[in-house]
C-alpha cells in the first residue's frame, strides 16, 4: 500500500536506514531484559532464604522484659523490698541514624535534664558492650510530666520511647540496707566469675551487688521475658508479635523484724546525736558517728535485727542519681557502705570478761563464791595496774566481778589462765585466751551468709608477730590487759551477739541466718532454713549459769557493797529480767584535731528474759564514751520493742543519760 509514497519520504539518510540499526539495538535491549530476569531469578529464587532471614532480623527486635525480682518479707510478713512498675526513657540507637544522633542528643538533653555528654556516655558504654541493638536506658523512673512531654514530641525524637519496666522499691529506705543490699549492673569482672558465667548472666543485667540481693540473686532475679516487635527502620513500633512473659523471681521471708530493725537504727542514731552534742565536755564525743546493733534469736541463731550506722538508701542506687550517689558514698570517710554489724571489728573491752569468767570457772582457776580482793590496783611484773574504781570494790566473787566489771578480779584470772601448767610459771601462755574466745565464736568465722565478714583479732602466741609489732614477745602487763578485753580482742557486733547467745542458751553456737524461707510466687516453698549448730562452748551448765547470774546482776542490781550493777541504772525496773554486760574499750587513737585521746568505744551485750532466754543483743557505738552510757540505752530500746513494752515504759524513758560510773581509766568499766 502506497509503497511509492513511503519510499519517497524516507531516502534522506541513504543506505544507512534506521531499521537495521534499530533492530540491532532492540536486540541489545532484549538481552538486557534477559539479564534482569536472570538477576531477579537469582535474588528471589536462589538466594531467597538468605535474604528472607536477613530481612527478618532487619525488622524484628526482641525487647527484653525484665522479670520482677522477688519480694522480701520480714518475719511478720511485712514487705521490706518489692518491685513496682515504673516508666523509663530509652533510646534505640538505630543503624542508619548515626548522623541524626547528635542533633537528637542535643534535643533530648534538656528534656531529660541531662547533659549531652551523659547521654553520649551511656550510648558509648552500651556500644562498647556490644549491646547497641538493645534500647539504651537514659532515665529511670520518670514522673508523668516527663512522660507526657516525651510522648508529645515523639515525632521529633526518633528511637526514643517510654517503656514500663520494673524498678526495685526498698520500702524501708535505708533501714537494714547493708543486710538487704542493693542492685547494680553486672560488671565485666563479674561476668568472668564462674557463678555468673554459668548462671546465664549477660552484659547489662542488673544484679544484686551486696547483701541478700547479691547472695540470693539466683532466686530473686526470675527469668527475663521478651517482647517480639516489628519495628521500622527508625525503630518505631509497627506491630507487636506477642511476648514471652517474664517469670517473677522467688520471694524471700527474712528473719528480720522490720520494727525491731527500725528501733535499733533510730536508737543508735539518737544516741550518736546525743553524744555529739552532749553539754558536758567529758561526755561529748564529736566523733561518735557510727555504730552497729545485732539482735539474734538465742534459740536458733536467726537474726532479728542487724543495724549498721551510717547507712545508705538503696533506692538511690537504682535511681538516675546512682552514679553520683555511689561516688559520694565511696568518698565518705565514714564509709557508709561498710556493714559494721559484721564487717567492722572493735576492741571489745570489758564485755570480754564473760569469756574470762567462764574459762576461769571451767578450768577451776576459781570456784563459785570464791573471792578476789580488789584494793583498786593490781601489781604485775613491771607494772601497776589500776581498777576503774580507784578505791577498789573490796572482795568480789565471779558474779560480783561481772556485776561491777571489776578489773582487778580479771587481771588475777588472766594471771591464773596464763600459767604454764608444766613449769608453773605465770604470765607465760596467751593461747588459752584465744582458745576460750573462739569457743564462744569470737575471732573465728561465724558462718554468716553475707559477704564482707570480718573475723577480728584474737589473742594467741604469734599474734603480736602476725600483726607486725616490733617486739613479738608477750609481757605480763599485756597478758593482764587481755583479761579485761584490751588489746588483741577486736570482734564484730555479730560475733558478740553470737557469744552472748551462746552463753544464754547454754553453750550452743548457732550459725546466724537471715533468710528463713524461699517461696515461689505461687506460694510453693523452695527452701527453708532453720537453726544450724556451728559448735559448742564446751562449758559445764553450772559455769554458764554463774556467768549469766553475774550478767543479771550487772543489769538489774542497783546497789550492794561492791557497787551498783554497771547497767542497773537502765534495767533495774525493767519488767523483763535482763542480763547484760557493758564494755568500754580504748579506741587507741589520738584525735587528729585535738591531739587528745579519742573517746573509747562503747559496748553492751545482753540477753533476755533471764530464765528462758529468747533474744541476745550486741551493741557497739564508736567513740561512745562508755558502755553504760551509749550502747546500753540502745540495747534497752531494742528490748523494749522486742517485748512490746513501748507503751507502758516504767518511767525509764526520762532516764538521764548519765552513767553511774565512768571510767577514769582506759581499762574497762
Amino acid at each position, binding site marked *: *500500500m502506497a509503497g511509492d509514497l513511503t519510499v519517497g519520504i524516507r531516502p534522506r539518510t541513504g543506505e544507512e536506514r534506521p531499521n537495521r540499526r534499530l533492530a540491532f*539495538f*532492540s536486540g541489545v535491549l532484549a538481552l538486557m531484559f534477559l539479564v534482569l530476569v536472570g538477576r*531477579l531469578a537469582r535474588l528471589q*529464587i536462589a538466594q*531467597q532464604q538468605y535474604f528472607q532471614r536477613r530481612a527478618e532480623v532487619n525488622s524484628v527486635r526482641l525487647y527484653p522484659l525484665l522479670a520482677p525480682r522477688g519480694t522480701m518479707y520480714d518475719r511478720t510478713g511485712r514487705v521490706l523490698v518489692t518491685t513496682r512498675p515504673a516508666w523509663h526513657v530509652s533510646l534505640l540507637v538505630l*543503624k542508619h541514624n548515626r548522623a541524626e544522633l547528635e542533633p537528637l542528643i542535643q534535643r533530648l538533653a534538656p528534656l531529660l535534664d541531662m547533659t549531652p555528654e551523659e547521654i553520649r556516655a551511656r550510648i558509648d558504654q552500651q556500644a562498647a558492650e556490644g549491646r547497641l541493638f538493645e534500647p539504651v536506658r537514659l532515665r529511670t523512673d520518670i514522673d508523668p510530666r516527663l512522660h507526657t512531654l516525651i510522648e508529645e514530641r515523639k515525632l521529633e525524637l526518633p528511637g526514643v520511647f517510654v517503656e514500663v519496666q520494673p524498678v526495685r522499691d526498698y520500702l524501708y529506705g535505708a533501714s537494714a540496707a547493708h543486710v538487704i543490699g542493693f542492685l547494680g549492673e553486672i560488671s565485666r569482672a563479674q561476668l568472668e566469675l564462674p557463678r555468673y558465667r554459668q548462671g546465664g548472666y549477660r552484659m547489662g543485667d542488673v544484679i544484686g551487688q551486696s547483701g541478700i540481693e547479691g547472695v540470693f540473686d539466683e532466686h530473686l532475679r526470675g527469668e527475663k521475658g521478651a517482647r517480639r516487635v516489628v519495628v521500622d527502620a527508625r525503630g518505631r513500633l509497627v506491630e507487636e508479635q506477642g511476648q514471652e512473659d517474664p517469670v517473677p523471681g522467688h520471694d524471700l521471708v527474712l528473719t528480720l523484724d522490720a520494727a525491731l530493725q527500725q528501733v535499733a537504727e533510730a536508737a543508735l542514731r539518737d544516741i550518736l546525736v546525743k553524744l555529739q552534742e552532749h553539754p558536758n565536755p567529758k561526755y561529748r564525743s564529736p566523733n561518735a558517728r557510727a555504730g552497729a546493733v545485732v539482735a539474734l534469736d538465742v534459740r536458733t541463731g536467726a537474726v532479728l535485727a542487724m543495724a549498721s550506722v551510717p547507712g545508705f538508701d538503696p533506692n538511690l542506687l537504682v535511681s538516675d542519681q546512682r552514679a553520683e550517689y555511689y561516688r559520694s558514698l565511696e568518698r565518705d570517710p565514714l564509709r557508709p557502705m561498710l556493714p559494721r554489724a559484721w564487717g567492722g571489728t572493735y576492741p571489745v573491752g570489758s564485755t570480754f570478761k564473760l569469756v574470762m569468767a567462764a574459762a576461769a570457772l571451767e578450768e577451776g582457776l576459781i570456784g563459785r563464791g570464791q573471792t578476789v580482793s580488789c584494793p583498786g590496783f593490781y601489781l604485775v611484773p613491771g607494772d601497776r595496774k589500776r581498777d576503774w574504781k580507784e578505791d577498789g570494790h573490796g572482795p568480789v566473787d565471779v558474779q560480783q566481778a561481772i556485776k561491777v566489771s571489776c578489773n582487778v578480779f580479771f587481771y588475777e584470772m588472766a594471771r591464773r589462765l596464763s600459767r604454764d601448767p608444766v613449769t608453773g610459771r605465770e604470765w607465760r601462755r596467751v593461747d588459752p585466751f584465744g582458745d576460750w574466745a573462739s569457743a564462744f565464736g569470737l575471732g573465728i568465722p561465724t558462718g554468716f551468709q553475707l559477704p564482707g565478714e570480718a573475723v577480728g583479732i584474737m589473742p594467741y602466741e604469734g599474734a603480736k608477730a602476725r600483726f607486725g609489732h616490733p617486739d613479738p614477745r608477750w609481757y605480763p602487763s599485756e597478758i593482764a590487759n587481755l583479761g579485761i578485753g584490751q588489746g588483741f580482742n577486736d570482734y564484730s557486733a555479730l560475733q558478740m551477739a553470737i557469744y552472748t547467745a551462746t552463753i544464754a542458751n547454754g553453750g550452743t553456737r548457732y550459725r546466724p541466718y537471715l533468710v528463713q524461707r524461699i517461696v515461689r510466687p505461687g506460694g510453693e516453698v523452695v527452701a527453708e532454713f532453720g537453726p544450724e549448730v556451728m559448735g559448742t562452748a564446751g562449758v559445764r551448765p553450772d559455769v554458764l549459769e554463774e556467768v549469766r547470774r553475774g550478767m543479771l546482776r550487772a543489769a538489774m542490781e542497783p546497789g550492794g557493797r561492791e557497787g551498783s550493777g554497771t547497767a542497773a541504772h537502765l534495767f533495774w525496773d525493767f519488767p523483763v529480767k535482763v542480763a547484760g554486760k557493758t564494755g568500754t574499750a580504748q579506741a587507741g587513737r589520738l584525735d587528729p584535731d585535738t591531739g587528745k585521746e579519742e573517746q573509747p568505744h562503747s559496748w553492751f551485750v545482753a540477753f533476755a528474759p533471764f530464765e528462758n532466754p529468747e533474744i541476745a543483743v550486741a551493741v557497739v557505738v564508736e567513740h561512745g564514751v562508755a558502755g553504760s552510757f551509749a550502747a546500753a540505752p540502745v540495747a534497752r530500746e531494742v528490748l523494749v520493742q522486742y517485748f512490746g513494752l513501748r507503751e507502758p515504759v516504767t518511767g525509764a524513758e526520762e532516764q538521764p543519760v548519765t552513767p553511774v560510773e565512768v571510767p577514769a581509766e582506759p581499762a574497762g568499766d
Partner: protein
Amino acid sequence: MGEDERGRAVAGDRRARRPAVRPWRKLRRKPPDFALFLTAAILLGIGVVMVFSSSYVKADRLYGDPYYYLKRQVAWAGVGLVAMLVALNLDYWHLRRWARPILVLGIVLLVMVLVPGVGRAAGGARRWLGFGPVSFQPSEFMKLAVVIWLSASLTARGARLRQFSQGTLPYMVLLALIFGLVLLQPDLGTAVAIGGTSFLLLFCAGVPVVHLLAAGGIGLVGVAWAIVTEEYRLRRFLAFLDPFADPLGSGFHIIQALYAIGSGGLFGLGLGNSRQKFFYLPEQHTDFIFAILSEELGFIGGVTVLGLYFFLAWRGFRIALAAPDTFSTLLAAGVTGMLILQIIVNIGVVTATLPITGIPLPLLSFGGSSLVFSLAGIGILMNISRYQTQ
C-alpha cells in the same frame, strides 16, 4: 523542512491553508496500536496499586493520610491520560516544526530550576518548579523534548550526519550543555537516560559508529569524572561494587532493596505485606517501587512487569520500524528507547546490577511529571502507529 510539494496533493482539504507538510493524509489512517495502549494501561494500574501499597505507611506517618500518595498518583494518571489522548490526536508531524522551540523551552525550564526561589529543592537536589501545590520536574519534560528535537534535527541533517563536524560534533556540544544542566541539579539518572537515548537516536540515524564510539568514550570519561568528583556518587558507586562493605552507610539503600526483593521469593509476601516499606527502604514508592513490588508479588510479579515492559518495547520498536518516514521512525524509536532505558537502568539499580542512580520507573513510580510525559510519549507512539506501512 523540504517536503512542501507533497502537501499540495491535499489542497482541497479543510486545513489546506496550512503549510502542506502532511504526507500522512495520503495514508490510510489505521486504528492506533491497541495492544500498546492496553499494556500501558495495565502497567499504569499496577503502578497505582503499588504506589498505594508501598506508600501508605509513609503517607500516614508524614501526612496522617494513608491515601496521600495514592490520590496524587491517580490525579496525575488522569492528567497523563489526557496528555496521552492529546498526543494521540494531534498531528505529530507538527512536532517537527516545533522541535526547536520545545528544546529551547526545556533548556529554559532547566535553567529556571537552578534559580533560587523559583526552583524547589528536596533531598539535596533542585529538580522541581513549583506552581502552587503542583510541582513539575523539567527534566522529565526534557527527556521528551530531546527525543523530539533529535528526531527532527537528525532527519533534517540527513546525509550530512556522516561528517563528524556536521553530524556528531554539534550534537555532542548541545547534549553536553543539557547534560551539564541536568547534572547541576544534580540528576545523574536523567542525564544517563538522555545521553543513552541520544546515542540510540544518533546511532539509528546513521551517524558513523566510529564517531559514536569516540564521543561515547568522551562521555564515559565525563560520567566517570562526575562520579569521582562528587563524593556521594563515588560512595554510591563503590557501594554498588560491594554493598555489604558499608551496610549502614552507602550500602544501606541497596541492601534494603536486596532484602526486599530477595525475601519476596517466587510468589512474594502478598500484596500489601511488604516489610521493607516500613521506612527500611527509602524512596519505596518512587525510584525503588520495583523492590517493594518484587517483595510483595515475588519473582512471578517482577517477571510479569518486566514482560509487560518488554512487550511495550517490542510494540514501540515495531511501530518505529513500520513508521512512514524517518522522522516518525526516529521519534518512535526515541520515545520507546527513552522508556526502556529508564526501565533497564531503574531495575538494574534496584537489583544491584547497576550502580545507584536515581531514576523513576516509567508508569509505575510515584511522580506526576514522569507519569505525564511517559503517557504523552506512549500517546505519540500510538499516534505513529496509526500510519504504519507494514
